[in-house]
């Protein structure tokens, strides 16, 4: 086993996912099967090989800092599950 049930619980928490006991069990098995499969990568010696995060030579694209038209507030909020006074509204974040 590469990944324990405790690992899966931790990953679910990091992923902000809630899991039933059955789901934890099922995902443990499936993630283990996938991780065992990707283990084939360890057959390759990659010492000194540069990683490729992106195929293009990315560089920052700059533009003048000018005010341009943007989404009006009501459109930006139009899909919000809850909004109030022009703000997104969320459950309380801090105690007290």
């Amino acid at each position, binding site marked *: 086993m590469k*990944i324990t049930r405790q*690992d*899966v619980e931790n*990953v*679910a928490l*990091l*992923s*902000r*996912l*809630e*899991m039933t006991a059955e789901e934890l069990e099922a*995902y443990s098995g*499936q*993630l283990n*099967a*996938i*991780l065992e*499969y*990707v*283990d*084939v*990568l*360890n057959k*390759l010696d*990659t010492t000194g*090989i*540069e*990683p*490729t*995060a*992106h*195929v*293009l030579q*990315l560089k920052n*694209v700059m*533009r003048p800092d000018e005010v341009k038209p943007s*989404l009006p507030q009501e*459109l*930006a909020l*139009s*899909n*919000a*599950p*809850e909004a109030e006074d022009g703000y*997104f509204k*969320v*459950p*309380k*974040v801090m105690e007290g």
Partner: protein
Amino acid sequence: MELFKHTIHALHERLTKKEISAVELAKSVIARTDAVEPQIRSYITETREQALAQAAAVDAKITRGEVIAPLAGIPGALKDNICTKGIKTTCASKILANFIPPYDATVVDRLAAQNAVLTGKANCDEFAMGGSTENSGFFVTHNPWDTARVPGGSSGGSASSVAAGQAIWALGSDTGGSIRQPAAYCGNVGLKPTYGRVSRYGLVAYASSLDQIGPITRDVTDSALVLNAIAGYDAKDSTSINAEAPDYTKALVQDVKGLKIGLPKEYFGAGIQPEVAAAIKWAVDQLTAMGAEVKEVSLPHTEYALPAYYLIAPAEASSNLARFDGVGFGHRALGSDIIDMYKKTRSEGFGPEVKRRIMLGTYALSSGYYDAYYLKALQVRTLVKQDFDKAFDEVDILITPTAPTTAFKIGELSDPLAMYLQDVCTIPINLAGLPGISIPCGFVAGLPVGMQIIGKPLAEATIIQAAYAFEQANDYHTRFAPLGEV
């Protein structure tokens, strides 16, 4: 022949000659959808009223004697992960079931500039994660060549709509084969452009370093026409390539004399259905007879591409999908505090495959595992890309099967890993950022086989020319799906 069965270029000619009207054409496609949608289920959202209004506007242009663009008045479908202003865009996910984008994707703007007609938003695997459209959060789409089988995925609804006559063309997105594989399964032409050739602005991100939008069409000419409409630099996408897009219809030349074709031996071995491999080799023999030169080449790291992809793509997905938190848009569940709200929202909103990939990606990126999994996969990506660079020193194009088998049955691949293996021929191309096109090149037991032609970066014209030469010497592109069970 009914209007809904025609190609873009044939319909454009008839529109400009005033033999048909755009409204008549839109009505033909709508009536066809009425007839076949219960069997096929291509669409999450249909946009009939808008389509008829767009068509009427094109007819008015024609009446006024104005020159119309190649896609003007021609009905097409968009994969439901491409944002459309004022039209629901769900990514086939319950978490976005009611999301109405406040803006259009750049490709949508470009299609509108040509006065293309939008038929609706096509079903797909949830957030484009899958190879069968069975992972849609809403319903399963059926293959028009055999309705007991999958249309492929993730752009399954895009491919099925074109194959069933519910759209003349469609756009899909391709992260690991999601345009080419469904096009192969449904007997269509599917083109994944070079990474950066088509703007991703307004495409809901799955794996940002791999995603590309591209056309699914009935023939190669239509593929070039749609690519002409959508390709080119876009300041709104920081990964857009700042190079002018050529007129791809100039590549529609039936000539492959002296073209050097490489057959990578790793793509014809174990795991490939022998009849599929035979169909590809038969097609390559035809190209040889037309004057192309063929040689075997090796891409030695091919077997490592799939496992590398299934670390890289989920890692990027786990980060991209963090935005679905019930705050700015999409589904929100009630929670006792904000963390509880996040967890309940995401658990209710995401389906099992999406959760699996988020967890896999989160694990691969987490402290203690980053070097062993994610970094290792990125190094392997370098080796995969170098394989292609070396091969392209010797040849102009590479030819492989698009998928290891023809379309499989709905429910047949229940194990996630078995489903992942379906992408084995297409994923390396995304890792290397190359253009690839799938065209029909034969049938096995009544099901279409797709041939994949891979080109150098930005060499879409070369793969279009090779595809066109093969297509014009055969009649596969003229066949129409029977819409029954084989």
